[in-house]
């Protein structure tokens, strides 16, 4: 039974850029999110991948309303089937929905206040949202701390006394204490060492199984994405260029950008790094995007049509969408399971 939790439709976000030279010219605007639409099913993990500057963090922030989208709708489906436009709600009215949507940030060194004890950090959302007695708060914090693998004896300490992995557990505990239905993880494991990364990924997976949480997992690391997600959205210059179930996306990508991204990941296996596609050039400037398909200056398969016409996101298979004119015709290289057989 698939139940929707979020429907995102046609989100746009513009940032204004001040001109450095002309004092009175109207500020130019950069389109950071370009007509983003997708649906989120309860209990799944949707990953959003892309290079830096593609707008993946902005999208995540718009979904939790850390910033407001310029236009578009984010419909939140409540547990009893109501549909509410999350972006229209203001002030106090938004509170009950904010509770259900939490966020975990990339850098556990700057996302935790150094002046609050770990206990206070985890308890703060409870105090802000509910009127609870001290004993109730204490009980809830202990419960969550145990679940996330924190030592309950150390809760009176301050964040500086904890390592990166421990701090990320604190951030997860803070997000979980509201019993959210959706957590947006913005590069939640990127700042951690490999051996700690694996611990946190496993913790996130376990929590999802126990509590049926839905994740939006924003990352630039494709190997992690493949290990954690049910579906993946690939973003390029503010647009979703491919959206598919994880297996289908990695097995047979339908967009040249996805292929190139996968191919660029260095594999921890000396025999495997041979036939790689190396993209020439860099991401185009979003203030002055290229005509037609935004990827065409770097694409190996481009034709004249790509320069003229911008492709729309369209369905090319079961649960597989791509924004490439030639998605079906190109026989793009994926990654196969044999690569995982080493050791």
């Amino acid at each position, binding site marked *: 039974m698939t139940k929707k939790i979020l429907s995102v439709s046609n989100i746009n976000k513009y940032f204004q850029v001040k001109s450095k030279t002309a004092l009175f010219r109207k500020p130019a605007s950069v389109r950071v999110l370009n007509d983003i639409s997708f649906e989120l099913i309860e209990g799944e993990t949707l990953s959003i991948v892309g290079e830096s500057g593609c707008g993946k963090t902005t999208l995540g922030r718009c979904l939790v309303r850390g910033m407001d989208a310029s236009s578009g709708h984010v419909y939140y489906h409540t547990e009893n089937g109501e549909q509410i436009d999350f972006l229209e709600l203001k002030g106090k009215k938004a509170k009950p929905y904010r509770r259900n949507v939490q966020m975990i940030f990339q850098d556990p060194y700057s996302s935790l206040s150094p002046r609050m004890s770990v206990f206070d950090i985890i308890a703060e959302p409870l105090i802000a949202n509910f009127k609870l007695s001290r004993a109730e708060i204490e009980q809830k914090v202990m419960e969550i701390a145990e679940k996330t693998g924190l030592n309950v004896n150390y809760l009176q300490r301050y964040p500086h006394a904890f390592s990166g992995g421990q701090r990320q557990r604190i951030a997860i505990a803070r997000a979980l204490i509201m019993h959210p239905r959706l957590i947006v993880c913005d590069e939640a494991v990127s700042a951690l060492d490999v051996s700690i990364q694996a611990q946190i990924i496993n913790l996130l997976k376990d929590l999802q199984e126990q509590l049926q949480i839905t994740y939006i997992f924003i990352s630039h690391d494709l190997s992690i994405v*493949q290990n954690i997600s049910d579906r993946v959205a690939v973003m390029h210059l503010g647009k979703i260029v491919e959206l598919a179930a994880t297996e289908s996306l990695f097995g047979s990508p339908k967009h040249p950008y996805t292929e190139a991204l996968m191919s660029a990941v260095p594999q921890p*296996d000396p025999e495997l790094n041979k036939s790689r596609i190396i*993209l020439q050039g860099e991401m185009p400037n979003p203030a002055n995007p290229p005509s037609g398909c935004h990827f065409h200056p770097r694409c190996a398969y481009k034709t004249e049509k790509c320069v003229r016409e911008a492709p729309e996101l369209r369905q090319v298979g079961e649960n597989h969408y791509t924004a490439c004119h030639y998605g079906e015709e190109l026989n793009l290289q994926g990654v196969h399971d044999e690569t995982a057989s080493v*050791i």
Partner: protein
Amino acid sequence: MTTQAARTEQPLLSVQDLKIRIETDNGVMQAVDGVDFNIYKGKTLGLVGESGCGKSLTSRSIISINPKECETTGSAVYHSESEKALHNLDLLSLPPTGKRIRSIRGRKIAMIFQEPMTAFSPMYTIGNQIMEAILIHRTKDKKKAKKIALEMLAKVGISDQEKRFDQYPHEFSGGMRQRAMISMALSCNPELLIADEPTTALDVTIQAQVLELMRELQKELGMAILLVTHDLGIIAKMCDEVAVMYLGKIVEQAPVKEIFYNPKHPYTKGLLKSMPRLGGNKSKRLDSIEGAVPMPIGLPPMCGFYDRCKDRIEGVCNTKAVPKTHISDQHSVRCFLYEDQSEGESQ
């Protein structure tokens, strides 16, 4: 005592028993604790480990650019075939601000840093900064220096060099800046390039470009590279030999294929298994190494990995320091599990 008994060729750089101590408020930190390795001409040695294992300090100590709080002992013998004055010279014995080390830094041994934005000065143009090294080490003629600098920029794939030459670092993108840094490092044809996490701040697609560039230039110029990274994927792509560091010690050292297909140390095995790789899927749990790296302050003489190790032997691993064991000519490991495999060879 050499790590590679089979090789007769003299190493370009031979680091022996390198130790770095740092005085902190909480006690003396033994950040690097007895590191040995050799780097050969035209080869790449990878130094891999988690943050805090001492890999950056090790690489920086070679050209004496660590902060002065670091007390360094041991030796780093440099052997240049092209220059008599540099035959068997112990770099660590030179005063860190003296003339001799400065004549080696940048000319014979160059370095690329992780964050190209902070490594360049924002106050000078890129061209100016590349020329600086050339003017110090290669020629006094400004016109000639500029010509060399422009050639170097072209070599690392920067187009429109004349215009780029007069631009400031903030006008370059991250990937471009890293290319400019490589061109600066290579402008004096160094024999050894130390690259400290050269692509960590870059996107995967740009990372692939930069790594490819480094490999091509290595082939062309025949320099040796010491590559410091935490990413096993980069190690697999770039290195000939790998040294795995943990808590200030090299716990395993072997040719790249040995490390990936025949790892011995429980830590190396754990690292390889905990790394998510393409081709996995959601149902598969990652093997993680439990616990975290301890602080290297006041540790007793025992295996530093003991608390996190699945194969630990109580009463052995936690009672004495772990000696180095040679499994084969080129493969050495610091672990008691393999101690009996090489009679008499270990110290």
